[in-house]
C-alpha cells in the first residue's frame, strides 16, 4: 500500500542554521508515529515543514503518491491555492491551542469548513457539533475560548482540525502548555482518535503516552533521524548513543509493569 504521506530528503535552514538535515519519513494509513527529541532537535520545524507552514529549503513531500509543488531547477515552488488545498487535508494541533478568540466554540470549529471547504452554515455547524461531541465538549458550543480551561481549549482545537475531515493529524506538543491535571483529557481525546484509525504524527514529551499510543517512534536529534522503531525498541532498548543519552535524561520515565506485554501493535 502506498504511504499516505512521504517526506524525502527534507532540509530546512533558518539563515545559516540548518535545523533539518535531510529527513526521510513516511506514514502508512492509520499509523501513529511519535517524534521524540530534545529541545532544538527540529521536531516542531519538521511538523511545520510537513504541512508547509514553513517552506523547506529542499526536499519533497508527497501525499497519496502525489508530489506537492512544482520542481524548477531542483527547487520546489508552491502556489498559494495549492498550499491551501494541501493544508486543509492535514489537521494541526498547536502547543498554544490558537483558537480564534473572537469566535464562539461553534464558529471556531465551523469557520474553516465554511471558508475553506465551502460548506453551508447548517452543514458546517452540524459537523462542528459532531466533532465537539467526539472530544466531549458539545455543551460548550456557545462559549468563547477565554471561558474554557486549557484542556478544553485544546480539545476544541482538536475538534476544529477534525471537522475539516483531514487525512492526517499533526500534534505539535499538544499538552506542553497545559497544567498537569489537564493533560489527561487531551491525551484521552488523542488516544480515541488513534483507536478510530486516524493517521497521526505526534510530537510530545509524554514518554509514557508515547509508549502506549505509538506504532512507531522516531528519534530526532540536531535535525536528523537517528533511530526509529517500535516503542519497545526505541524507549526500552535504544541502540544509538544519542537515543540512549536522551532516555537517560528522562529518569522520570517509568513504565508500568503491565506495559511489558505487547502494547505497540
Amino acid at each position: 500500500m502506498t504511504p499516505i504521506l512521504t517526506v524525502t530528503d527534507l532540509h530546512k535552514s533558518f539563515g545559516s542554521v540548518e535545523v533539518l538535515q535531510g529527513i526521510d519519513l513516511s506514514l502508512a494509513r492509520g499509523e501513529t508515529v511519535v517524534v521524540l527529541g530534545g529541545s532544538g532537535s527540529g521536531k516542531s520545524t519538521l511538523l511545520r515543514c510537513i504541512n508547509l507552514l514553513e517552506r523547506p529549503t529542499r526536499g519533497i513531500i508527497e501525499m497519496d503518491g502525489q508530489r506537492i509543488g512544482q520542481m524548477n531547477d531542483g527547487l520546489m515552488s508552491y502556489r498559494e491555492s495549492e498550499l491551501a488545498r494541501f493544508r486543509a487535508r492535514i489537521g494541526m494541533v498547536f502547543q498554544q491551542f490558537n483558537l480564534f478568540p473572537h469566535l464562539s466554540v461553534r464558529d471556531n470549529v465551523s469557520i474553516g469548513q465554511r471558508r475553506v471547504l465551502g460548506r453551508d452554515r447548517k452543514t458546517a455547524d452540524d459537523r462542528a457539533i459532531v466533532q465537539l461531541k467526539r472530544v466531549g465538549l458539545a455543551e460548550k458550543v456557545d462559549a468563547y475560548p477565554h471561558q474554557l480551561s486549557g484542556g478544553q481549549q485544546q480539545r476544541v482545537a482538536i475538534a476544529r482540525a477534525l471537522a475539516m475531515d483531514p487525512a492526517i493529524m499533526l500534534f505539535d506538543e499538544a499538552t506542553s502548555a497545559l497544567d498537569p491535571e489537564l493533560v489527561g483529557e487531551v491525551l484521552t481525546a488523542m488516544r480515541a482518535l488513534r483507536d478510530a484509525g486516524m493517521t497521526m504524527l505526534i510530537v510530545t514529551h509524554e514518554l509514557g503516552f508515547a509508549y502506549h499510543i505509538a506504532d512507531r517512534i522516531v528519534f530526532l536529534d540536531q535535525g536528523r533521524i537517528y533511530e526509529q522503531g517500535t516503542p519497545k525498541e526505541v524507549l526500552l532498548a535504544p541502540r544509538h548513543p544519542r537515543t540512549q543519552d536522551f532516555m537517560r535524561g528522562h529518569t522520570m520515565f517509568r513504565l508500568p509493569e503491565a506495559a511489558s506485554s505487547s502494547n505497540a501493535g
Partner: protein
Amino acid sequence: MSHEWDFSFLITYSGVLAKALGSTLKLAIVCLAAGMLLGCVFAVARTSRSSALRFVGAAYVELFRNLPAIVLLFWCFYTIPLLTGIGNDRFLTAAVAFSLYAGAYFTEIFRSGINAVDAGQWLAGRALGFTPFALFRDIILPQAVKNMMPAIANETIEVVKLTTVAATVAYPELVYTAKLLSDTEYRPVEAYTAVEGVLLLALLPLAVLLFRLERTMRRTN
C-alpha cells in the same frame, strides 16, 4: 481688568456659525474617510511580505508624520495649483494636506493593530487551509479592529480638531469664522469662547459614541 461679557452678537451671527460648523464637519469627514483609506492601503503595504512595499509604506509614514500639519498645509496650498493646474481651492488644499497627515497616523494604528494579533492566529488559519486574503478578513481583521479601537477614537478626535488649522489658509471653518466675527465686533473673547463651546458640543457626543463602540466590541470577546 474687567471685561463686560456680551454674547448677544452671536445670536445675530448664529447662522454664520452653523455654516462654519458645517464646513468644519465636512472637512473632518472627508479627511477621516480619506485618511483611513490611506491608512488601510499603507498598513497593508507595511505588513506585506514584499520588502519594496514595506519600504513604500514606511516612507509614506515617515514623510507625513514628521512634517508639522501646518507646513504640509502651506505646501499643498502653493504646490497643488502648480502640479495640477487646478486653481487655488481652500477646501481641496486642506482636505489633501490633512488626509495625507491623518493617513500616516492611521497607517501606524492599523499596522500596530494587525501586528498585535498573536502570530499563532496566522498559523492556525493557514493550517486550516485559509487563503491569505480570507485569513486576513475573517480571522485577523476582526481581532485587529478590536485592538485598534482606542487609538482610532483618539485619532478621529485629533483629526476633527486638526481641521481648525485650515483657518490659516482662510478655509471658512469655525476658527476662521470666529476670527472674522471678532474683528467685526471687537469681541475676540466671546467669539473664541463660542468656538470652544461649539467644538466641545460636537466632539463630546463623538467621544461618547466611540467609547460605547469600543466597549461593545470588547464585550463580544
